[in-house]
């Protein structure tokens, strides 16, 4: 597909990288020559120098034949104008990044009037991710599929866990509603089969419906209680959205923000939240807020380094859940080695959301792709497909379907019920199929079968 990305910032660049690797023809528009130079040198994309809302730049980027235009500049208003202009000039699908909370209330109206097909809000998406982590504090990462019917939960295996050193084929007898979809050992991603034995220190994805997953962790002896109070360092957009999202969850939030004006604004907009005007990276301040007793420490300042140091301090003080926001770094495993397991990156979250939409737009005949989720630092991907009538793989037992190496048919959802599939099970038309596969092996459901 022809895709235009306006704005060559962190999100724009990451998107261009993934989309061009996916085989799309990507053109980047930006007014900063230096930012473009980097993309031009390292990616196989075309670069156009200019303002994304300018007709000439858009024409030069080939807007008339563009399938998707993604406006991801730092400026919400520019993104809207850019999408509006592009739509008028012939772009088929427009995606705008709009993140100012001021616009969130009028968003539906704006989106309709400006004819924007999709709005993404990186801060809000990140806040949603954090709220899920607060709900399952024992998890490193959580993603839900099939409208929340299936949860994929990543956790680290301790040596005391009862599942250690047992082949998965045996584990299945004990936990019939849980599928182990992916694992990481010594930095290598593995798609496990029946003979795979989980070892201490592995990072494993357990998949199933919400109750089964909770039961599973209860059986393992993990503390499944949700977090009761959390300390947030940094009072930006993410903190605001997070406070809004978990307002009904019974979690008490303390936001520490250094800027007086921001504090006042947060206090004005949010109820039931304690806002402190202080330096959240100062350990004195954290101690005086009873950091040790807090269920979670979430570091959301604009600086990666401060987030990391504060997060490390939280880990040492024994906070149950530490979440750190990282903007620039690509190597999240580096941070994980330091003891911080949950890392959120608005850049990657946004890129993931858009990648899903793009893949959903480039559909095949036999299936509809609903969702793509990158796991284990992007080494493994989970896909949600809907199987369509007439596809070649229907009604054939999975054992006869020659599934490619590195692909696992994880869960089938049929008539709102989850099926953990075996060799004798088959895919029916209308099923939701959740697959995990090593990144880059499949694009369509058909690709899973040799």
């Amino acid at each position, binding site marked *: 597909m022809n895709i235009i990305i306006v704005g060559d910032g962190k999100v724009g660049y990451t998107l261009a990288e993934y989309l061009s690797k996916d085989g799309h023809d990507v053109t980047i528009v930006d007014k900063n020559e230096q930012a473009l130079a980097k993309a031009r*040198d*390292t990616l*196989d994309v075309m670069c156009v120098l200019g303002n994304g809302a300018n007709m000439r730049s858009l024409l030069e980027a080939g807007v008339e034949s563009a399938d998707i235009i993604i406006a991801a500049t730092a400026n919400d208003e520019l993104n809207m104008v850019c999408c509006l202009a592009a739509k008028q000039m012939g772009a088929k699908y427009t995606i705008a990044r709009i993140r100012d909370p001021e616009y969130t209330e009028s968003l539906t109206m704006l989106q309709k009037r400006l004819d924007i097909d999709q709005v993404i809000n990186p801060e809000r998406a990140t806040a949603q991710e954090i709220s899920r982590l607060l709900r399952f504090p024992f998890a490193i990462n959580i993603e839900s599929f099939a409208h929340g019917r299936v949860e994929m939960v990543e956790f680290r295996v301790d040596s005391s866990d009862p599942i250690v050193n047992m082949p998965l084929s045996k584990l299945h007898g004990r936990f019939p509603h849980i599928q182990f979809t992916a694992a990481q050992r010594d930095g290598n991603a593995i798609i496990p089969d029946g003979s795979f034995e989980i070892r201490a220190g592995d990072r494993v994805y357990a998949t199933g419906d919400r109750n089964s997953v909770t039961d599973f962790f209860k059986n393992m002896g993990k503390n499944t209680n949700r977090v009761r109070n959390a300390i947030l360092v940094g009072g930006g957009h993410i903190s605001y959205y997070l406070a809004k999202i978990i307002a009904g969850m019974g979690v008490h939030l303390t936001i520490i923000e250094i800027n007086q004006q921001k504090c006042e604004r947060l206090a004005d907009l949010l109820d039931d939240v304690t806002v402190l005007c202080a330096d959240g990276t100062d350990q004195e301040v954290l101690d005086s807020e009873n950091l040790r007793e807090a269920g979670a420490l979430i570091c959301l300042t604009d600086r990666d380094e401060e987030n990391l140091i504060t997060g490390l301090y939280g880990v040492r003080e024994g906070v149950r859940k530490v979440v750190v926001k990282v903007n620039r770094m690509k190597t999240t495993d580096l941070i994980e080695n330091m003891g911080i397991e949950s890392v959120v990156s608005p850049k990657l979250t946004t890129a993931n959301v858009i990648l899903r939409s793009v893949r959903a737009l480039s559909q095949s005949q036999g299936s509809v792709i609903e969702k793509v989720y990158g796991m284990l630092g992007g080494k493994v991907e989970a896909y949600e497909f809907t199987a369509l009538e007439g596809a070649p793989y229907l009604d054939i037992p999975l054992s006869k379907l020659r599934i490619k190496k590195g692909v696992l048919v994880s869960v089938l959802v049929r008539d709102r019920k989850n099926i953990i599939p075996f060799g004798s099970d088959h895919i029916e038309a209308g099923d939701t199929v959740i697959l995990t596969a090593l990144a880059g092996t499949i694009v369509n459901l058909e690709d899973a079968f040799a």
Partner: protein
Amino acid sequence: MNKRLIVRLAGRVLLVESALMAVPLVVSFLYGDGDHMAFIFSMAITCGCALLTSLLRPQNETLRAREGFSIVALSWIAVSFFGGLPFCLSGRVPSLIDSVFEAASGFTTTGATILKDIEGMSRSLLFWRSFTHWAGGMGVLVLSLALIPKMGARSVYLMRAESAGPAPSKLVPRVGDTAKILYQLYIGLSLLLTLCLLLCGLSLYDALLHTFSTAGTGGFSCYSASVGHYDSAAVDVIISVFMILFGLNFALFFYLRQRNWKAVIHNSEARVFVCVVSIATLLVTVNIFSAGFYDSFGGALRRALFQVSSIISTTGFCTADFNTWPLFSKCILVALMFIGGCAGSTAGGVKVIRMQILTKSMVRDVRRTVHPKGVFTVKIDRRSVEESIISSVQGYFFTVILLLVSGSLVLSLDGYGFETTVTAAITTLFNVGPGLDLVGPTGGFSMFSPVSKIVLTMWMIIGRLEIFPILMLFSPTAWRK
């Protein structure tokens, strides 16, 4: 520097070259001229060396700017060397240095020759000579990019190091696709030219040979008298027009195919190019007509147009011995050698766009002396040119002058007169072909000493790659660990 990767990728290019040698091999069998063994041996040697390089396993696949430039530089030197093998192995050109000179002259689309008796060469060797023009014109690496899928995202460095012009850009987002489009246009235009020449009554062999030489803006012909051999107005005009077309930026043909008329009309480089051709043609016509070289104004115009378009597109075909023309006309032709074709064409020279930038930055410097605090930008096509590009163009031009002076100094040791020495350096560095006096349209380069020939061979490759890739190869900082 990832040396293994450099050698390995250069080896891939050699593989493409050995495949290209199959074409003259077929010609050799068709005409039975007895040179087929030379081609078979050359193919075997080239292919063998290419396969040897593929044994190298690079530690990683990272290809950065410096690796890209080194691959291009190394490939061109290797391609010229192996391309010379058929001449040498056939025994028709005894000296290896001469053979490599001829091949480098072919691939760099220069068209300077050391052959004294062109008609005495075998048909397949003449075919190979012209075919190297065609292969080298659009670039051997661009050809490899089009043929070999997935050289990686960063292969853009390869294309940029090989394409002509100050800031080469892609036509479509992907490098591989861009390379394919360029070759489609190239092949399309070449076929059109062959058809036109066939209609003029040329044999298929002659038509193909002259198509290759025109398309690559090279200038090798199968006759000593070059295109003048046919003495046909139609052939002259057709080749003149096509030489001008191949001197234009290929992006224009892409825009034409897309029906993007605006982009074509607003391209100032093409306008300047056509203007320069028209003015130069007019001046030369008046000059040679009034000096009494031709009876009719039309005849003078035909010769002048051919010579002007041949020189500015750095092809180097001749229909007249311009050595005998008045000095004014000769000076115009030498000036045209400096200008050369447009960026993104197969032509050599400094390139029209660089001349535009240089002229405009000179005007700006004059305005700055009038208004010391004034802020002026250099604009091309209503867009301001970045300062980094302006300074790199100025640096490029200085290096060109430096190379011309130093090259002339080396050649002067042979003692062949001022005109010969200086124009030999100019004509090789700008990939034109003929110069003046002894190296003029009727002369050749065979009399130079081996040292001079090696220098001229290097100058051709340096000129084709626009200097910096080759110079980087000799810079110690690039290789330091």
